[in-house]
């Protein structure tokens, strides 16, 4: 009987943590950044549950319950904050808030222009309304 050893679970947890870290660093949408942070928490939760399993002790699982609680609180507050930030700048872009940076830092400027938006489809042409359609001449007068 071969079982999955402890360090395989730790590897999966580490991969999730690293991916979350990359997402938090690279993405600029506030919501995606926050989702990445939650993914890092998931990686840590896998580690804790795996340690609990391989120690025969439930303390790791109890710890994950607390991280779950804290993650729920964090989500509630962060979403409220994101809504407030969105209201004041009308965008979820985090680099609109770069005037909060430290005094010596250079601002980041987007050099590469966005590709032009796809051309809008032409509207369908309708015949002008109100024109009297041609109709045959009346042949009889009463």
């Amino acid at each position, binding site marked *: 009987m071969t079982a999955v050893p402890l360090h395989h679970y730790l590897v*999966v947890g580490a991969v999730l*943590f*690293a991916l979350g*870290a990359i997402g938090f660093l690279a*993405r600029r949408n506030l919501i995606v950044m926050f989702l990445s942070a939650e993914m890092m928490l998931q990686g840590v939760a896998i580690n804790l549950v795996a340690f609990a399993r391989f120690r025969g002790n439930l303390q790791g699982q109890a710890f994950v319950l607390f991280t779950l609680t804290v993650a729920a609180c964090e989500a509630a*507050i962060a979403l409220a904050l994101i809504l*407030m930030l969105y209201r004041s700048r009308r965008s979820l872009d985090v680099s609109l808030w770069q005037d909060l940076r430290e005094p010596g830092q250079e601002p980041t400027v987007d050099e590469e222009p966005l590709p032009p938006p796809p051309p809008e489809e032409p509207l369908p042409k309708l015949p002008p309304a109100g024109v009297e359609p041609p109709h045959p001449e009346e042949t009889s007068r009463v």
Partner: protein
Amino acid sequence: MPDVSQLVRLLLVEHLPITLAVVLGLTAVYLLLPRPRGYPPLWGAAAGGAALLAGWFVIRTGALTPETLLFSIFSALAVVSGTLLITQRNPARAALAFALVVLSTCGLFLLLAAPFLMAATVIVYAGAIVVTFLFVIMLAQQEGLSSADQRSREPLLASLAGFLLLGTVLYALARSYQSPHLNDRLREVQQFQTRIQGLSRETALPDERSKQVVAELEKFLRTFRKGDPQKNIPSARILGGESGGDELADAVYEAQDVLEKQQFNLENNRPVQWDEVEQALAEVRRVGDRVVNRLGTFQPRDQTPLSGLSGPPPNRELRRDAAGRPELPAENVAYLGRSLFTDFLIAVELAGTLLLVATVGAIAIAGRRAEGPP
């Protein structure tokens, strides 16, 4: 001055799967991160598939059992949807990918004997948090993709940082948990076992073949126990690490003892008792599996006062199942509740207070009226 050739050997020979997986994953994530003129997604997908394959070599287990199969499926699903999360341009799709990450994590929780956590995570994350996220996305992004989703901030530096961290962690894990030498040894023991099983069916008088097997086995066990300094093979005591070296060396010594008796039988032209040898080898494998499972653990000292309310404290001898893992109580919820209300009572109260404060805070923050233009 670090030795460059040693570093190259470490990266490209000893830990080649890790290096491959990290480099390919770095390429995949770098290619897939959103940017105005992106690379074709097919390149990134190909690199990602290759990285998954290399990752499978990192965490490959020998036999295909339901458990290893489920583990591979769930972990591959988690990693793939995690990559999708950070590379999707559409935040709503990213939220759905996050739900997939959470669900596959829950599968791993089930494999780790944590059914209550599985249910709680599905309800709290996939049920509440993801739905709230989707709600905020719908509320805030009605006009489609914003320019923030088309760009990434420093994609190369970010993926370098993340994968450097990952590579270091994987290397440290391989150093402390994997023992390729020990695994090779145990595999060889298994091969000897199958050969002996073939021989023991024909319990005739000793012939050339059994003499050869005994000689080979004797040589193998001697190298296993003592090691071979010339070929850089460590001894059993070193292979087993601090927690199991003595045990492993003792088991191998017993097997040598049994084999010596059979050599005596051979010399006196008596039939070899193969089943005894096989039993000794099976014992070596059992101890070896247990030692492999215990590699990299730091067991606290016996005198450390540890609570026994959340299961047996880790400095006591544990009951282990056939695969060498400690047994967990079957009533997960009952024992988790006992653990929460004994060991973690203050923490539970604090968590409740935290939830209350977070609710009040969220309402206070979000309830304020708009400050910008309406």
